[in-house]
């Protein structure tokens, strides 16, 4: 692109970019990632050095499904900020996309490449927690900010905490505890006595299952865990697990399954009639899945998600995200949880820079830690001991509504569990978990 951009305005660049993006597949944009997004430069002489941000998300392998909307919305948010001249009105944002391939060492290398070659000051992203933790080591060393939301292992903000990393969604631990809150309520309501768990046999699945079981034991000690089942990551045929669960005849099943495996499971479980006699509370159902599985999703199951737009349409920032997104990609398109959380992350950076009055990393970091920021879920504080956004988790029954072409969580019965109710209670306890870093 180079020089031709100097003549065109920023708007043209964004239009050009989004014309490509507005094709059903974002992939053309990200395919030309390095080229398309790197030079949203202003012709204006007074504009200072651009603020470069690396976006590190997988577009290869099974994580790619959830990278689409974040990759689509981030340029829109950046364009919005840049229309005011950028950060502090003078540092236009440049986004640099990279594919982490869901491999930790690729993530680490791309992070280094972004920091050293593209001179990014912030890295947004990663989908898998293992990649996030590998990247954490790199950004800590180079003193670069990392804003994450999708990869939500509790370790990121506890054991592996670094002051440069900010978490904009609930961690897996927070989510599991939130599920317990909702499930305890249901146990009382429906008189459930016994349950089984089915988890994916990897860190996230194990962790989510363990936290759920431990906390449910505390909250409702009389509820009996009948059996723990574990399926391998990338399972394509859950039939055997489904029939095993059905033979147990529990009152409810807790599933720690995410991603495509989750969809496979739901589709096969529905066909097998699992949901006819067994409740399935707490399944992870981000807006992505509600939209993609609009037809196939069994109605009435109780899902959890992290940042649904439909629950926050009263918040101005959420209205803005949805509008930006629909204007660009069509009436049927909505930003999913991940898009909203990453959009929040970018907006938070803007707010942090404004508060600090500079784009210097140390100052921005300090101004964000402990600050209360405007998000699409309202004003939320960032915890000062581990940079965790005090964001809620949402649990609700999957129902159809006239407003949307896909099911949402029943607004009447939806349970919103606040972040500070389910995170590690005190900052002293958090600090005890955190390891010392040099």
């Amino acid at each position, binding site marked *: 692109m180079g020089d031709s951009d100097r003549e065109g305005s920023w708007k043209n660049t964004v239009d050009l970019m989004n014309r490509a993006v507005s094709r*059903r*597949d974002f*992939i053309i944009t990200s395919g030309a990632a390095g080229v398309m997004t790197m030079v949203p430069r202003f012709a204006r002489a007074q504009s200072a050095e651009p603020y470069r941000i690396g976006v590190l998300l997988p577009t290869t392998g099974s994580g*790619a499904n959830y*990278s689409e909307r974040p990759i689509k919305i981030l340029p829109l948010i950046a364009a919005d900020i840049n229309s005011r001249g950028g950060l502090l009105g003078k540092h236009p944002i440049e986004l640099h996309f990279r594919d982490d391939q869901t491999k930790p060492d690729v993530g680490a290398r791309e992070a280094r490449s972004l920091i050293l070659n593209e001179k990014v000051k912030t890295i947004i992203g990663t989908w898998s927690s293992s990649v996030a933790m590998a990247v954490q080591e790199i950004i800590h060393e180079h003193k670069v900010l990392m804003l994450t939301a999708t990869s939500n292992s509790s370790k990121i903000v506890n054991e592996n905490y670094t002051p440069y990393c900010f978490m904009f969604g609930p961690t897996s631990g927070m989510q599991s505890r939130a599920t317990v809150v909702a499930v305890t309520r249901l146990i009382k309501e429906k008189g459930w006595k016994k349950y089984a768990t089915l988890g994916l046999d990897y860190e996230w699945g194990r962790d989510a299952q363990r936290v759920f079981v431990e906390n449910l034991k505390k909250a409702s000690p009389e509820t009996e865990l009948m059996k723990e089942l574990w399926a391998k990551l990338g399972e394509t*045929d859950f039939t*055997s697990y489904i029939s095993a669960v059905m*033979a147990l005849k529990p009152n409810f099943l807790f599933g720690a399954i995410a991603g495509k495996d989750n*969809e496979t499971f739901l589709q096969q479980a529905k066909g097998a009639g699992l949901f006819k006699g067994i409740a399935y509370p707490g399944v992870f159902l981000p807006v992505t899945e509600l939209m993609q599985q609009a037809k196939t999703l069994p109605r009435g199951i109780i899902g959890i998600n992290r940042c649904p737009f439909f629950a926050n349409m009263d918040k101005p920032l959420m209205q803005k995200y949805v509008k930006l997104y629909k204007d660009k990609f069509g009436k049927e398109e909505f930003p999913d949880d991940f898009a909203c959380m990453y959009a929040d992350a970018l907006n938070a950076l803007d707010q942090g820079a404004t508060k600090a009055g500079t784009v210097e990393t140390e100052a921005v970091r300090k101004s964000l830690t402990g600050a209360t920021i405007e998000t699409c879920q309202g004003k939320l504080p960032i915890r000062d001991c581990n940079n965790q956004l005090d964001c809620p988790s949402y649990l609700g029954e999957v129902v159809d509504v006239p407003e949307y072409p896909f099911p949402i969580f029943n607004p009447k019965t939806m349970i919103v569990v606040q972040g500070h109710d389910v995170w590690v209670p005190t900052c002293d306890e958090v600090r005890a978990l955190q390891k010392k870093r040099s």
Partner: protein
Amino acid sequence: MPSDLSSFLIQLFSGLSRAMMLFLVASGLSLIFGVMNILNFAHASLWLLGGYVTFSLYQAFSIGFGQHGFLLIPAILLGTVCMFGIGWLIERVLIRRTYAYELPEQLLLTFAMILIIGDLIKLIWGVQNRRIFLPIEPIEAFGGFINPYLFIVIGCGFGIAAALWFFLHRTRYGKIVRAAVHSREMVSALGIRIPAIYAGVYAMGVAIAAFSAGVFLPIMPIGLGLDMDLIVQCFAVVVIGGFGSILGTFVASLIVGILYSFSVLIWPGGALAIIFLILVTVLIIRPWGLFGTEMRF
């Protein structure tokens, strides 16, 4: 262990459906290796591609003729034909050139195809998972519920197995193919054009894979990376059964599928380890597999 007969039966059918799924993908792999001596690393990737093609055909039919589940049948058939053509093309353009080379080059070629096909899918279909919705309702059987589609899957598996058996044992072309498994020289000495057989077998293997991908679409959403999850298991099945032996692949699929299904109850989480143990045992004791013929190297 299953407490009563009904859950035992249900577990058995679950195992059968898994077995048929493995068989449908692995049979092409086995056939290609048996005849052409090529380990088609890219088999699962072509399987995935077949799924996407069938998906798109179904979409197109739905737009043309309105939503109807039965449109899946022509979509699967047309998708199978398309993938047969693609398989033929791949053999003619790429694989054919490597017959003169050693085994490693052939492995590498198909390895490279995994990477290329994965990215091509990304370019054409994007990164979203794809699925086909059929209004499947569970039916009551054996005192519980069961997914009726399982019977379609099992039926397709046995159907393909029978069709393959008929093809290999009762048709002239099939007999030539079987002869080629045993002795390439003999077949070419008979004046039969080996290249045409190779292309045909490769295309057929790919077509069977595409067919199975289509059949599974209503119960298995497809997405990037799915091929990686499947290929190692398919290798296991083919090795256990013996390369080139369709019967062996069939039996190995049954063993692996049913054992997996029951081990879910007994040793949750260890099912995969069991497959590996079987695989390693077979490779050490009988490297050419349960039904394979001893190596030709």
